[in-house]
């Protein structure tokens, strides 16, 4: 029998000399990506894991067995019922936004498996595609148990098939990132920016909080997924290095674009979970501190190592790190019936903690939460809509998220005439990204434009029911019905 060293490199880097078609025909630029370089430019491409298919199958089988074992031991309904109910809403947000996005990532990886320009890249991407199937199947399997307990968990599967406003925004990102990108843009955007820069936040940072909260099932699930992500994320850097060598301006533009787009998604998904939906006594660090470690420190060091600059909007990003998820959480709290998970009002102790973690920005949010306290104090018990917005919300023409850029004293939204229409953007980076690829984004209608065009109902309840796909059993509420000890509603 051959030793591994005798065959592994040959199998992993199997390639052939084309004779019936040209290299450009076999790897057309539309699918393979820009810059189109001859195969000789990719000959040295490699990634550090160098996994063979046999090793992959053996390793994945062992990981799946470990997830099943944990599920059998602590993944039953009675186990989930012991988990803090506030935390379960972080789980609903994670499960809906990421589970089927992983399924879309199968397509992106398969594009790399076919059109990646180096054979070792194609081998790693083939395993990446198989990884992403697993990352879809695990949460669908594990969280299905919770459907018996809570119908909001149905959104683990349902979310991307709905016209919910968060789903419209997430699809706008995921369709381009995972389904529409050529192999080079996918590798830089997904493997380098998204998976190297940001999924560590969700899969390592949040899993450590899950451990502290006592949610061992979620911890095991995401740790298992992260071990795959760590491997296939390695595709990104060598692709980026090849692009930097050939066209550094393009490399910088792709990193700038996908860093901003990924940031907005993770600020909501991870920011909510870490700073609002993790019980205070189990919070080890703030969302900002996790970002400082995993994104600002590590990611910038990597950018520097490959010869790129930090994105041009860095000062806007830093301001956004202090504010954006606070802006969106307070907004979404007052439109909670438009989403599939429940919210809580941060307690005075939590607000004090947030002030210590966000000393430069938190004071601007204090009056909002005092106002919400005041509204609950005046509200009839059991009337969740008494403390709820009714006006139509504005959405950004690029990211499709609510207009929550900037700070409470100065919202950063920009109205501009672009591609023959008056449009609004939540921030300067979103405006700039739209301008750079007008033809890609111009035809997309945000929720407001769908309402104004008569394609979606203007009435809030009709919008929730017939367009966002929610009903009384699934739409978000205040988890405690506004009944908080510091609000003292019963004294009236």
């Amino acid at each position, binding site marked *: 029998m051959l030793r591994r060293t005798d065959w592994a490199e040959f199998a992993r880097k199997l390639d052939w000399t084309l004779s019936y078609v040209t290299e450009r025909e076999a790897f057309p630029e539309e699918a393979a990506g820009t810059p189109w370089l001859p195969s000789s430019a990719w000959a040295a491409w490699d990634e550090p894991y160098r996994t063979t298919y046999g090793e992959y199958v053996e390793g994945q089988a062992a990981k799946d067995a470990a997830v099943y074992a944990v599920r059998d031991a602590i993944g039953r309904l009675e186990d989930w019922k012991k988990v803090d109910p506030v935390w379960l809403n972080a789980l609903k947000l994670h499960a809906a936004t990421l589970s089927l996005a992983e399924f879309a990532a199968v397509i992106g990886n398969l594009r790399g498996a076919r059109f990646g320009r180096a054979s070792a890249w194609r081998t790693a991407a083939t395993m990446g595609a198989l990884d992403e199937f697993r990352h879809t199947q695990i949460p669908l399997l594990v969280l299905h148990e919770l459907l018996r307990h809570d119908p909001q968990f149905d959104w683990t599967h349902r979310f991307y098939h709905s016209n919910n406003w968060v789903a419209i925004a997430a699809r706008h990102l995921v369709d381009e990132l995972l389904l529409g990108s050529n192999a080079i843009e996918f590798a830089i955007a997904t493997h380098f920016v998204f998976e190297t820069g940001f999924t560590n936040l969700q899969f390592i940072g949040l899993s450590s909080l899950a451990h502290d909260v006592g949610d061992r099932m979620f911890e095991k699930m995401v740790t298992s997924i992260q071990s795959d992500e760590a491997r296939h994320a390695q595709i990104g850097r060598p692709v980026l290095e090849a692009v930097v060598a050939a066209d550094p301006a393009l490399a910088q533009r792709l990193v700038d674009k996908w860093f901003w787009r990924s940031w907005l998604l993770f600020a909501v998904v991870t920011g909510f979970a870490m700073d609002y939906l993790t019980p205070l006594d189990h919070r080890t660090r703030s969302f900002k501190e996790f970002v400082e470690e995993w994104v600002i420190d590590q990611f910038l060091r990597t950018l520097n190592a490959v010869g790129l600059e930090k994105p041009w909007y860095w000062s806007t990003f830093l301001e956004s790190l202090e504010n954006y998820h606070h802006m969106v959480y307070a907004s979404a709290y007052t439109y909670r019936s438009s989403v599939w998970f429940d919210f809580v009002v941060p307690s005075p102790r939590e607000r004090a903690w947030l002030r210590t973690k966000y000393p430069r920005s938190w004071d601007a949010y204090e*009056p909002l939460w005092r106002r919400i306290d005041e509204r609950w104090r005046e509200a009839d018990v059991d009337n969740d809509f008494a403390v709820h*917005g009714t006006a139509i919300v*504005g959405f950004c023409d690029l990211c499709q998220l609510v*207009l929550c850029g900037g700070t409470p004293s100065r919202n950063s*939204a920009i*109205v501009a005439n672009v591609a023959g229409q008056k449009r609004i953007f939540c921030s300067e980076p979103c405006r700039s990204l739209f301008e750079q690829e007008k033809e890609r984004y111009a035809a997309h209608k945000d929720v407001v434009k769908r309402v104004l065009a008569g394609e979606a109902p203007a009435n809030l309840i009709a919008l929730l029911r017939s367009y966002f796909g929610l009903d009384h059993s699934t739409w978000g509420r205040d988890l405690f019905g506004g009944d908080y000890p510091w609000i003292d509603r019963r004294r009236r």
Partner: protein
Amino acid sequence: MIPVYGFVEGDTLGLVVILHESESIADATAKLQQAADVRVTPGDGAVLVHRGRVLQPKLTVSAAGIEALDRVDVRNGRGSR
């Protein structure tokens, strides 16, 4: 009817509010404050800002030059209830 993007100082998001051509700026300001009322306590003496100009409260929306999908901002006055 003129849909505009409205931003109330102290609020966390932009809202879409429908104004009418003949509506006064004072009424439009109050309408925007009402739309954000769940999060921001309406303040006295608030002003409406459009394209960098503070609008006179007695002007009408059309006389002030507000057009569909413009941005308007409610900025705080001195007092607040």
